[in-house]
């Protein structure tokens, strides 16, 4: 079932007297429970696409249907309500949170705003969500500033799943994490997808991360999707120069070649 259907999105920015084409006729589809990895170098337009889809910036042209609805036509209270279905997680989670907030309030916000559970059950739901992302319930009382980067990313995921979304847009969501933490967060995301059937649009410049979690991969370059297909195909046989550059740029452990030769 097609969950997200994007057609011919255009977006231009004026930057220092020049016009930058961030999105140029971008079309893509995403099924329920599927992960589409969106790869590209800096300035390829991938983050702009994430921002247009999450309605943080308007598109100049094109259409987006999400769950069959005209997503770009929604506004006001209607848009706020529907946002429950499409959540996002960014790289810099601290910047996305009110610095005075507690962990509990950060996760409780979507429960309240979208009226997910009755007020009396919110505390228990927060505890359950914390537990689901691997954090003790007692963390609810902590300041968001007093948790580590890896824990904060788990809290962002707990908040994103709180409103029971069909889609989560992840923009470089694990790029700032140490490798050992990164692997655990990727495992968590995959487990949540299997449990809840969440679809992910996973934006990253790191093809190795996308290869771990994506069913399909699309490559962006200069505002356009230049290549897309099943993850194994795009990685194994990249055709566009942009895809080849991304594949070639992934560092390999030299001296460890036989590790993965099974």
């Amino acid at each position, binding site marked *: 079932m097609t969950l997200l259907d994007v057609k011919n999105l255009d977006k231009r920015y004026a930057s220092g007297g020049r016009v930058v084409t961030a999105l140029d006729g971008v079309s893509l589809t995403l099924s329920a429970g599927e992960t589409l990895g969106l790869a590209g170098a*800096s*300035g390829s337009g991938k983050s702009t696409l994430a921002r247009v889809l999450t309605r943080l910036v308007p598109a100049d042209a094109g259409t987006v249907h999400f769950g069959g609805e005209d997503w770009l036509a929604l506004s006001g209270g209607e848009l706020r309500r529907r946002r429950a279905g499409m959540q996002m997680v960014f790289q810099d989670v601290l910047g996305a949170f009110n610095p005075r907030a507690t962990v509990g309030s950060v996760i409780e916000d979507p429960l309240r705003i979208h009226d997910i559970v009755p007020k009396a059950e919110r505390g228990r739901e927060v505890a359950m969500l914390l537990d689901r992302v691997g954090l003790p319930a007692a963390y609810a009382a902590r300041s968001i500033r007093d948790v580590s980067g890896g824990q904060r990313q788990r809290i962002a995921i707990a908040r994103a799943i709180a409103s029971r979304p069909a889609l989560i847009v992840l923009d470089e969501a694990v790029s700032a994490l140490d490798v050992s933490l990164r692997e655990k967060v990727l495992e968590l995301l995959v487990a949540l997808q299997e449990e809840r059937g969440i679809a992910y649009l996973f934006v990253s410049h790191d093809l*190795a991360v996308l290869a771990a979690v994506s*069913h399909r991969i699309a490559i962006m370059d200069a505002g356009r999707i230049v290549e897309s297909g099943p993850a*194994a195909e795009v990685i194994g046989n990249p055709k566009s120069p942009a895809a080849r550059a*991304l594949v070639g740029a992934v*560092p390999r452990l*030299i001296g*460890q070649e036989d590790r993965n030769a099974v």
Partner: protein
Amino acid sequence: MTALCEIRQLAVTYRGETMPALKGIDLDILGGERLAIIGESGSGKSTFARALAGLLPDGAAVAGSLRWSTGQPRAGRDIGFVFQDPSASLNPVLTVGEQVAEGARRHLGLSRRQGEARALEMLERVHIPDPAKALHAFPHQLSGGQRQRVAIAAALAARPGLLIADEPTSALDMVVQAEIVTLLDELVREGGMTLVFVTHDIALASGFADRVAIFRDGMLVETGATGTVLAKPQAAYTAALIASHRDLATPPLIREAGR
């Protein structure tokens, strides 16, 4: 190779902190080698780089010794330093040419015109397109990757024997990262320099480093030739770092990927 710098029992504690950021470090830096300092957040790897370069902030308590075979080096003249974020390390109100020339003029005693010629030469060496035009550009007019090339040109303009690069590619995308690493490798080879490359990415380091030093929680966990450490890590932590590396040959986490 002889030791360029013998580091013994180096410890650093920042002002206002009770826990040392670095403790008990014994390490030799060999002349002409490419040494990768590898560690995760809080490992002390950047503190080590700054201690080596004499760039620790005021009030940092330093214990132990750094014995240089060349005599006490001067930052900028004998040691070039490349920071993670070129947007922060470059001065936004100076032209690219002025910043690249600055170190060369100060340390090599060049005139303004000679400094500009040296800057042009350095911009060519770091493969900035249209270097004559780039001389007069300001940092914000360049991409992140080009800015890092300029920062490298500035760090090398006074012909230092040692280049310390502290996570020089972490703020860049992977394609640009690969280009910058290739560039550093090339420049260090050509110039016969010593390179200390600080990174969180053991795979990135494995591509060009002669030796690796693994840091964790302010301590040196393991050091050795890159191939040896990767093939036979002695410390459990090193083995865990290697195991958590992910590249395109690593099996995916999702089930139905068909690979």
